[in-house]
């Protein structure tokens, strides 16, 4: 097998030009415009009903815009593209051309992926718009970039899956099966082992490799069906597909064994954190959780200072408002007197670091990696159990000896300055010796 650069370049240029035509074709369909406009309008309304904070808009785009609104549209578009020749009776005209059939299949997929990403970008912009219009807050470019990046792998994975299913089955109804799978993960994904949720950023390597394996596998099978034999390339597609599949499975296995699907009872630290209880212990439960650069943050770092712990979850994007309250506290009280920290309860390990960078928060944002949110906050992970959480957002304030002074809920946290008198009260408390 030999790779000849000019022919690789020629094929690449052809694929790009064909993909551009594919994108153009779908963009000129009225149904595509109608679907796109409806999805954007819904994304705008959804974000407008949330607190008008850009980060909340970005989170809504990741949790509602991409998965709920765009994915079904992408499945419909890609199914149409995969069966375009049959629908327009162009099969014979196209089939009699010399360009290898798998190149055309690949170009179509590329065109549809480009369309999905284009719509994704527009949808995010619509989700961020209410913060600007109603809250007067311009989203940081990073908010847009992070929301976009978070959607790339899951959206491309579902687009590829639908395309492969329709191409193999030669029936658009195969897309419905993929849509059911998507709905299943979307609605019941919280009850699955997290490795099966392709929307989680930590699962990207697995699903990127799996999507590639599906695409190459279908191209290899389809090439045989079209009986186009190019000896030089004969073994590349199936071998590459098999390699990617092996890579995906290995990555998934590694993740399950070493990371987030590890049962809590096998993790001594998580077990210890979950074993603390706010109502029975004299002090706020301690924790040791990773912050955005992966380093562990211990509550011990706040020793001798008043501590404000904000708890939020991207599964309830509006809870990110607690981060704004912590920012205000940070601005109003000196850091050597008051320590602030935000704890993120999320199945997705990349969200908290993203938000930390987007918001430029002057306090640590940590993630509880033991979180397995299944619709109920109280039982979603070690921190939630230890803090006896009923809802998010929540803001816990302790005195200098880490004894709880107050807990603020969603209602109190809506407006600014609600925590200020409590912090002052905590600062005024003398620090007695603690008897454990």
């Amino acid at each position, binding site marked *: 097998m030999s790779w000849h650069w000019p022919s690789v370049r*020629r*094929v690449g*240029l*052809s694929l790009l*030009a*064909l993909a551009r*035509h594919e994108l*153009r*074709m779908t963009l*000129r*369909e009225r149904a595509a415009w109608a679907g796109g406009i409806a999805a954007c309008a819904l994304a705008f309304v959804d974000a407008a009903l949330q607190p008008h904070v850009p980060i909340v808009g970005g989170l809504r785009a990741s949790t509602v815009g991409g998965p709920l609104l765009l994915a079904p549209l992408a499945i419909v578009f890609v199914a149409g593209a995969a069966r*375009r020749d049959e629908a*327009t*009776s*162009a099969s*014979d*005209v*196209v*089939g*009699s*051309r*010399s*360009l*290898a059939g798998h190149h*055309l299949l690949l170009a179509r997929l590329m065109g549809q992926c480009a369309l999905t990403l284009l719509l994704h970008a527009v949808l995010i912009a619509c989700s961020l718009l209410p913060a600007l219009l109603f809250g007067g807050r311009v989203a940081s470019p990073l908010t847009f970039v992070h929301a976009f990046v978070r959607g790339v792998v899951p959206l491309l994975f579902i687009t590829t899956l639908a395309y492969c299913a329709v191409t193999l089955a030669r029936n658009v109804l195969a897309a419905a099966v993929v849509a059911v799978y998507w709905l299943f993960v979307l609605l019941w994904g919280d009850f699955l082992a997290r490795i099966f949720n392709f929307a989680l950023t930590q699962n990207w390597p697995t699903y990127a490799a799996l999507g590639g394996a599906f695409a190459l596998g279908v191209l290899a099978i389809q090439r045989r069906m079209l*009986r*186009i*034999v*190019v000896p030089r390339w004969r073994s590349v597609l199936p071998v590459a597909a098999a390699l990617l599949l092996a890579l995906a499975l290995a990555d998934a296995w590694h993740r399950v064994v070493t990371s987030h699907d590890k049962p809590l009872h096998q993790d001594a630290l998580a077990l210890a954190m979950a074993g603390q209880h706010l109502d029975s212990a004299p002090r706020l439960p301690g924790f040791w959780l990773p912050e955005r650069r992966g380093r562990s943050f211990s509550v011990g770092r706040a020793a001798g200072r008043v501590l404000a712990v904000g708890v939020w979850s991207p599964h309830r994007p509006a809870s990110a408002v607690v981060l704004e309250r912590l920012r205000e506290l940070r601005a109003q009280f000196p850091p050597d007197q008051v320590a602030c920290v935000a704890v993120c309860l999320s199945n997705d390990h990349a969200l908290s670091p993203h938000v930390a960078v987007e918001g430029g928060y002057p306090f640590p944002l940590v993630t509880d990696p033991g979180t397995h949110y299944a619709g109920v906050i109280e039982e979603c992970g070690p921190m939630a159990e230890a803090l006896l959480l009923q809802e998010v957002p929540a803001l816990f304030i302790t005195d200098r000896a880490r004894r709880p002074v107050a807990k603020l809920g969603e209602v109190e946290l809506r407006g600014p300055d609600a925590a200020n008198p409590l912090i002052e009260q905590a600062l005024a408390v003398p620090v007695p010796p603690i008897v454990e």
Partner: protein
Amino acid sequence: MIALRIEVKGLSKTYEGGVTALKPMQLDIADGVFALLGPNGSGKTTFMRMLATLLEPTEGTALVNGLDVGHERQAVRRLLGYLPQDFGLYPTLTVEEQLDYMALLGEIADRAARQAAVDRVIEQANLGSFRKRRVGELSGGMRQRLGIAQALLTEPQLLIIDEPTSGLDPEERIRIRSLLAELGGDRVVILSTHIVADVEATADALVILRLGEVLFTGTIESLLARTRGRVWVCETPRENLHQMKERYVFTGVYRLGDRMRIRVVGEGVEECPAEPVEPSLEDAYLDVMALAERAAGGA
């Protein structure tokens, strides 16, 4: 352009369910316009689709410049342009974009070369004033011209065109015919039709097919020569017409007041004094078909 040769060796097609669309066929085709003439269901489209590498032969093979259509599909596709009978294109693309798309499928990767090819075929098919129009907005005749234009993009040595004039108005039909006649000059054009006038206007040689069987192969002159002396014209009262229709093969019936002037092919006419006339291609075609039908009936 290098002369192209097509050798068909025992090519046949039997569909699933046992329907034989094409019985084993032997054929040798060289430069010029080669017509496949036959009624609907005679196997023309099946033959063309096999030649266009879109259908697997059941038996036999066809070699295009020595390349087997069953096993060297991609190489054969590089030599051919194909326009199916019922074809669709992408309605949301403009004429220019559609041709660009098809040029890409014809492996013309370079943008400038593609643009030149698109300009050339737009000129050839006389589509210049419609280049920005969307395909979905074209009339039947314009779509047919676009179909021919897309088949010409790669300057194919072999052009396969299936029923290009069916369903077109007379003006558009004449336009397409003259375009096909021009194209036959430097390549092999295989044209399938059931309209004899199309063959007369464009073809150098033809094959007549009936129920998947080859009835005649040769030039138009040889077909006409075969029928010479078997075409008659006579006048007869109108009431004889029905009775005569059962005995003879009519190729034309014209009214002359209360009498009818008829044109028949056969050994002669007994009912009225008939004079022999020069056969037309239509006479010759109908004669071949009638003889085949009679032979089949006798068998």
